[in-house]
């Protein structure tokens, strides 16, 4: 027998009460860790994905949709814009670089982006193997794509029309892997990069197979001339901050294209989701406080109702400190188990949620287990439990053994 065992016996002496404290504490810990992990995962993902993109020029429509589709690659594009018009804007001296992108195809759910050599530097992506795209129908794979699809240099595959895996029409021209990027931990990891011409070419030939695709019919009319070619959007980075104020307005007012600032749109998005995160966080803190009160009541009840037992232990030779330890270990043990169960719950929850998310957007990566946050919450719980214990022990210290033993009934 020892102090720890006595604490455990106390916990099992009132199993339902202990279980209540444990479950409510574990749920609040799980919620706190889970919500923070999810929030940072999504936030980091979004912030990372925009890379060095200061502005996106695309077809008119929802600005958020343009950001989601062209920067994060998780939504459908707003439409196409004429390449020539976009290039004209790119000549503005305030613009450092302007990278056209064009997309609409996928391979096993991974998006194929037609672009120029300027795309990879936006995400600081470097080649790990092979070379960059030099001819149409060559592709460089993002690191995750190569890893998940087990593709290597020299492999060929057929792309499918549409942005999701289920898209039925398969194109007939094979794409050849010529390079693989190093992990950049940004959206480029999950993209297949090719030349703009590949997209145009595929859709030009594709047209003969799908007569009913009206969009492509328009495209076909002048595809040889640069002037009539279309791109989905243009990713722009500025030379000077003053461009933030002037350029978007200029484009939005004077052309039939729209210009959006991804960082601004992202901030707006977080404001919406932030309310939900805040609400869940406060709810979790409330549950945390309630469960600590439950633990306090449980410990205090033990000290009060079982004063005779404790006095008895004192006559056995137990010191005050040992009795305090019995109570404290009980609290800490429940806290520790609850923390572990909470961490487990949060990870199971995260896994489940991201499993669902993965089906819709292949791009979002779950953030690695946030040890720092889990430990922060652990420290908070430790502090709350210490407070509960501190409030529960004064009756032990004030205990008059003689009095308790002679008033036995």
């Amino acid at each position, binding site marked *: *027998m*020892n102090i720890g065992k*006595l604490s455990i*016996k*106390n916990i*099992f*002496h009132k199993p339902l009460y202990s279980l209540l404290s444990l479950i409510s504490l574990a749920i609040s810990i799980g919620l706190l860790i889970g919500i923070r992990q999810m929030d940072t995962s999504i936030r980091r993902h979004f912030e990372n994905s925009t890379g060095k993109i200061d502005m996106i020029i695309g077809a008119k429509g929802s600005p958020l949709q343009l950001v989601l589709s062209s920067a994060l690659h998780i939504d459908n594009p707003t439409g196409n814009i004429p390449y020539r018009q976009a290039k004209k804007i790119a000549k503005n001296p305030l613009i450092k670089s302007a990278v056209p992108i064009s997309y609409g195809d996928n391979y096993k759910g991974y998006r194929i982006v037609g672009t120029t050599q300027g795309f990879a530097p936006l995400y600081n992506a470097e080649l790990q193997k092979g070379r960059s795209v030099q001819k149409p129908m060559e592709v460089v794979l993002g690191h995750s794509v190569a890893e998940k699809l087990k593709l290597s240099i020299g492999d060929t595959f057929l792309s499918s029309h549409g942005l999701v895996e289920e898209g039925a029409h398969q194109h007939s021209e094979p794409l050849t892997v010529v390079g693989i990027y190093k992990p950049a931990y940004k959206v480029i990891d999950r993209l297949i990069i090719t030349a703009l011409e590949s997209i145009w070419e595929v859709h030009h030939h594709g047209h003969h197979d799908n007569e009913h695709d009206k969009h492509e019919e328009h495209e076909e009319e002048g595809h040889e001339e640069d002037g009539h070619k279309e791109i989905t959007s243009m990713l722009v980075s500025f030379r000077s901050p003053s461009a933030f104020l002037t350029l978007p307005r200029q484009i939005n007012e004077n052309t039939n294209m729209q210009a959006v600032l991804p960082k601004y749109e992202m901030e707006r998005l977080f404001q919406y989701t932030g309310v939900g995160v805040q609400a869940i966080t406060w709810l979790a803190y409330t549950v945390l406080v309630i469960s600590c009160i439950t633990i306090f009541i449980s410990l205090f009840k033990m000290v009060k109702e*079982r004063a*005779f*037992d404790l006095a*008895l*232990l*004192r*006559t*056995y*030779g*137990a*010191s*005050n400190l*040992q009795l305090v330890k019995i109570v404290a270990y009980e609290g800490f043990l429940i806290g520790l188990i609850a923390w572990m169960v909470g961490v487990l719950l949060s990870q199971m929850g995260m896994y489940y949620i991201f499993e669902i998310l993965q089906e819709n957007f292949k791009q979002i990566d779950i953030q690695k287990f946030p040890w720092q946050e889990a430990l922060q919450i652990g420290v908070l719980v430790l502090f709350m439990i210490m407070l509960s214990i501190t409030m529960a022990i004064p009756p032990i210290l004030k205990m008059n*053994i*003689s009095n308790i*033993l*002679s008033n*036995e*009934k």
Partner: protein
Amino acid sequence: MIHSQSITYRYPKKGDGFSFPDISLKNGEHLLVLGASGIGKTTLLHLIAGLLTPNTGSVFIEKTCLQTLKSKELDRFIGQNIGLVFQQNRAVTSLNVMENIKTRLFFSNVDYNHDEVSALLGQLNLEDCKDKKINELSVGQLQRLGIALAVVHRPKVILADEPTSSLDDKNCHSVLNLLLQQAEINNANLIVITHDHRIKPFFQKSIML
């Protein structure tokens, strides 16, 4: 061996204090303390047991004066040298019989010896309830467990507070016999305080408060 010298005690906020006759027992000697209710019997017992500190005077067990010990040393000394038997015996309710015995030994800093404990439980007719919970015990079993918990660590002094007042004649005799037998085995002094005159014949030495 136990020896007390001119001890007095006064409860805070209560009028008159108590002053107690000196007690002096050699090894193997037992004492009966008789007195009506409210005369301070339990107070005397708790003073000897070190649970209360006298205002004046001192208590010696073997050669140790309880009043010179620091609080932590006193806790340890009580745990190792004194066994208390209560009128209505209680044990720690979250533990079973055997766990109570082991807990007692743990706090008294005495190693668990399976043979000795089994022998003791045999003498007290408790071997069948080793694994029983406290609330499953009969009144008689609980009383005998109380005695077991008071003697299992081989104390120098066994102090019993009204151990028989709620018992019928037959049980009264058996409890006293057990107490005397355990005191004998452990070579301990037994001090019983009671208002129960039935047990007078069991003791050679007695004092009246």
